[in-house]
């Protein structure tokens, strides 16, 4: 029993076999001659003498070229037929030239990276070594020259790059979208990039980069950018934002109306805010709007029914509920759509176009995990230049390179430079792309320094910089973290309805929370007055009336102009200063059926 192989089909034990290894081999052979569907994978586990046959769905599989006796099944004849179009991929699978293996079966195989290194022991051949990378990493040039963490970072940053996200962006109404003004095809591409035809939807531009310091403005991963280049459209992006509203119908025959609101409407925003609206209450396309301007004028029926008088004077009590531009945004109305919502109501969409010109703090990254934010925008006159008059678009700090070991970044710079001279797109495919030697030759033939160094002149003094500076062309991406979408400050502003404390979050113009641990630090420092200032004076300070006899919160009757206690009717009342949240706490305790009393001793003057 013990020398028999246990055979599992999709994880269930189905029987035993005297020679599992041979069985696995037979199944594979049958699969290659199409007697068994090619979706089936077998895995023989030598250690425990078990055989697993997998037919289930959801297994990630990838193709390999089958190798027999040290020879690839993809013979030159087949390859020729393939080139002429007589054979297709599906034929190769049926012929058993190519087979798909899942993660488990991969354990049983020995893969050769290239045809040259094939030996008798090999069972499979990689179609191309660069396919060991996934789709995102496969797009990165020269990953084999970089350290692995940087590849990971580059892969995740490529997903944040702004470019042409969809070629029909003009017809789309995404709530938020970014489109680059002048996206470029990278000067150094990979096979995967070409296969995916990503150059049809590029997400970046080829920057002329100089690796040098610029008065410390590019320290700690900051970059210095050329103002002239920005003015010419470098890294320029437009943001498209769609605002929408629906004419909702309420029970009782009432409904929202999209119109130019009447000044008598409750919450009227003032004439200025409605200036861009057309007669129908929707903005005119291409009109320039800024924050809090109305895009769609809308009025709604009153929130509570009892507000409506019995005589049907509904019109006068209407509520203003227009759609306005979000705080801090400024742009033009791109287009307006009038249509019908799935619910049958009238639906209006307004798309705003905002220009996002690179500014200090915006994030850029190359395809080697080298990210940085703009530290300074320098006028073109002040940028360094070469003897040919080439001015870099971006200055990268040399400290960014050695510790991160992104040699691929440097090689791409060289490749990009060669590409620009030759007018040809270079190949940066992993393991098989152009090598340094290729670029050296090209550069030399055009009269450039073979290692890509240039003699630069200081843009301010005009003096020659004593050392040679590495200058090249590299594909840079603008990443989707824009300062203008994040900038936020508050001194005074809106408060929450329930607690009277400042609101939270940028969208609500909120404050930054002074939390428990921050409070602890002040206690530890012993500054009581500052604690009170933060937690009371600058938050939800309120003045409350307290009954001295029973300790409950009293009120002032403005009609009778007298203060009285609602519990004991006493008029012996004092005013105290507490946070509104504390008053709320007392109210909630009362709601639990507990009567908290405030015992007010004497009036303490807290003003020092």
């Amino acid at each position: 029993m013990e020398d028999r192989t246990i055979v599992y089909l999709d994880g269930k034990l189905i029987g035993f076999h005297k020679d599992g290894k041979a069985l696995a081999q037979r199944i594979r052979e049958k699969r290659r001659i199409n007697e068994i569907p090619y979706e089936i994978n077998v895995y023989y586990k030598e250690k425990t003498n078990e055989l697993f046959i997998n037919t289930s769905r959801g297994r990630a599989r990838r193709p390999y070229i089958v190798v027999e006796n040290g020879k690839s099944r993809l013979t030159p004849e087949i390859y020729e037929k393939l080139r002429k179009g007589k054979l297709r991929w599906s034929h190769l699978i049926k012929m058993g030239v190519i087979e798909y293996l899942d993660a488990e079966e991969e354990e049983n195989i020995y893969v050769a990276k290239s045809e040259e290194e094939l030996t008798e022991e090999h069972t499979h051949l990689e179609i191309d070594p660069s396919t060991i990378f996934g789709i995102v990493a496969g797009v990165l040039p020269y990953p084999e020259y970089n350290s692995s963490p940087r590849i990971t970072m580059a892969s995740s940053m490529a997903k944040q790059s702004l470019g042409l996200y969809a070629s029909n962006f003009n017809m789309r109404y995404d709530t938020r979208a970014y489109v680059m003004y002048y996206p470029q095809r990278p000067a150094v591409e990979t096979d995967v990039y070409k296969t995916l035809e990503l150059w049809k939807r590029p997400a970046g531009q080829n920057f002329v980069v100089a690796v040098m310091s610029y008065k410390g403005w590019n320290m700690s991963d900051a970059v210095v950018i050329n103002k002239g280049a920005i003015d010419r459209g470098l890294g320029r992006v437009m943001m498209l934002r769609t605002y929408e509203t629906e004419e909702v119908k309420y029970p009782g025959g009432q409904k929202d109306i999209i119109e130019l609101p009447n000044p008598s409407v409750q919450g009227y925003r003032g004439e200025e805010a409605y200036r861009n609206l057309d007669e129908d209450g929707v903005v005119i396309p291409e009109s320039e709007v800024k924050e809090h301007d109305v895009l769609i004028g809308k009025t709604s029926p009153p929130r509570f029914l009892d507000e409506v008088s019995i005589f049907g004077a509904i019109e006068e009590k209407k509520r203003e509920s227009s759609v306005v531009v979000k705080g801090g945004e400024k742009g033009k109305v791109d287009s307006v759509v009038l249509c019908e919502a799935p619910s049958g109501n009238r639906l209006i969409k307004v798309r705003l176009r905002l220009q996002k010109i690179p500014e200090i703090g915006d994030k850029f990254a190359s395809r080697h995990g080298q990210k940085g934010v703009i530290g300074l925008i320098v006028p073109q006159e002040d940028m360094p230049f070469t003897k040919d008059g080439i001015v870099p678009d971006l200055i990268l700090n040399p400290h960014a390179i050695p510790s991160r070991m992104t040699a691929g970044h440097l090689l791409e710079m060289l490749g990009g430079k060669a590409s620009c001279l030759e007018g040809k797109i270079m190949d940066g495919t992993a393991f098989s792309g152009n090598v340094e030697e290729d670029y050296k030759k090209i550069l030399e033939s055009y009269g450039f320094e073979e290692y890509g160094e240039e003699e630069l002149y200081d843009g301010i003094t005009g003096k020659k910089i004593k050392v040679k500076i590495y200058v090249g062309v590299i594909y840079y991406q603008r990443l989707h973290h824009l300062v203008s979408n994040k900038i936020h400050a508050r001194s005074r502003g809106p408060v929450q309805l329930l607690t009277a404390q400042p609101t939270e979050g940028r969208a609500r113009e909120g404050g930054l929370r002074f939390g428990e641990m921050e409070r602890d630090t002040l206690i530890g420092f012993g500054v009581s007055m500052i604690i009170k200032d933060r937690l009371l004076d600058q938050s939800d300070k309120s003045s409350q009336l307290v009954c001295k006899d029973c300790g409950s919160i009293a009120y002032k009757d403005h009609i009778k102009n007298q203060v009285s206690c609602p519990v004991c009717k006493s008029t012996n009342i004092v005013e105290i200063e507490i946070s509104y949240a504390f008053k709320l706490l007392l109210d909630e305790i009362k709601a639990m059926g507990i009567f908290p009393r405030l015992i007010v001793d004497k009036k303490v003057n807290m003003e020092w």
Partner: protein
Amino acid sequence: MKRRSKFQIPPGEAVGIVAAQSIGEPGTQMTMRTFHYAGVAEHVPTGLPRLIEIVDVRKEPKKPTITIRLKKEYAKKREIAEKVAYEIESIFVKDVAKIIEDVEKGIVVVRFDKIAGEQLGITKEMLLKSIKKGKRKIQEKGEDIIIAVDEDKGKKDEKGEKPKLFSKAKKVRKLFEKISNTLIKGIKGISKAVILEEEGEFIIRAKGSNIRDVIKNKYVDPSRIYTNNIKEIEAIYGIEAARNAIVKEVKDVLDMQGLTVNIRHIMLLADVMCSEGIILKVGRHGLAGRKRSVLARAAFEETIQHLTRAPVIGEEDPLIGTTENIIAGKTVPVGTGRVLLEFTPPKTKEKTERKKRK
């Protein structure tokens, strides 16, 4: 004198918060490091897990260890240390014998393992003696010792049904457990005694902790014994000893990580934990639960329980502590908030004289 007064804490300093932050901050670094010690499994917990253990006042630490020092006159004699180590190390029946249970017959068979016995210094007689202690009927059959379960010979239970077989199996199992864990020799809970040499003195370090029984040994010095079980120290040596033990244990943990925390912060923690005469846990069930103010307790944990209990006993909150005052929106009586009256004392004779001398 100058140096001393420089280090004095001014009145109103929030020592508690400062201590908490001073211990807490390196604590966060510890979390990151301790869990990287992969692979070393059989180890006394150090780092954050141990710190939590101390602060939570667990009845018994995960790995209790005892350090025994001998009385001065025996301290330098290795034989005596070995003897003590042998005497205290506990050996169970399961360590020196193979035990087989037979449910069908309702018996448990103990077979003495000579090799294991020899290594541990146990003879068959000792084994027999310890099993006999339980006043069980014993049958000897060659190498085997047979112990039978006392049967309730068809005694009918309340429902008039005969006892089922599984109840018999249960009994056998129980007996099996009991016999396997019967102590042959040594002190309960103590195992794996190791003799170490430290400053020319032989000390014994053992797994498990049982001071009460260990100090009965005539060679052991009861004034120099140590265990990492703080609860046990408290029970035997009192609260002051426990307080010192907390300080030592916390400091050891921090030192091992290479973190330097001023000992006064740790001492404050230990003092607070022991301030009530018994060790209090830091947290809901201990220190925080004993706060004077309802609001402070409610703000910490179990808000509703505290708030609903307060009116039942008619609690009043005089707003003395920090938390309450923040809730009520008053200045906190800490640091600058503690000063109610400012007073510049007239220059004393002594001071003016000292100035003159300068």
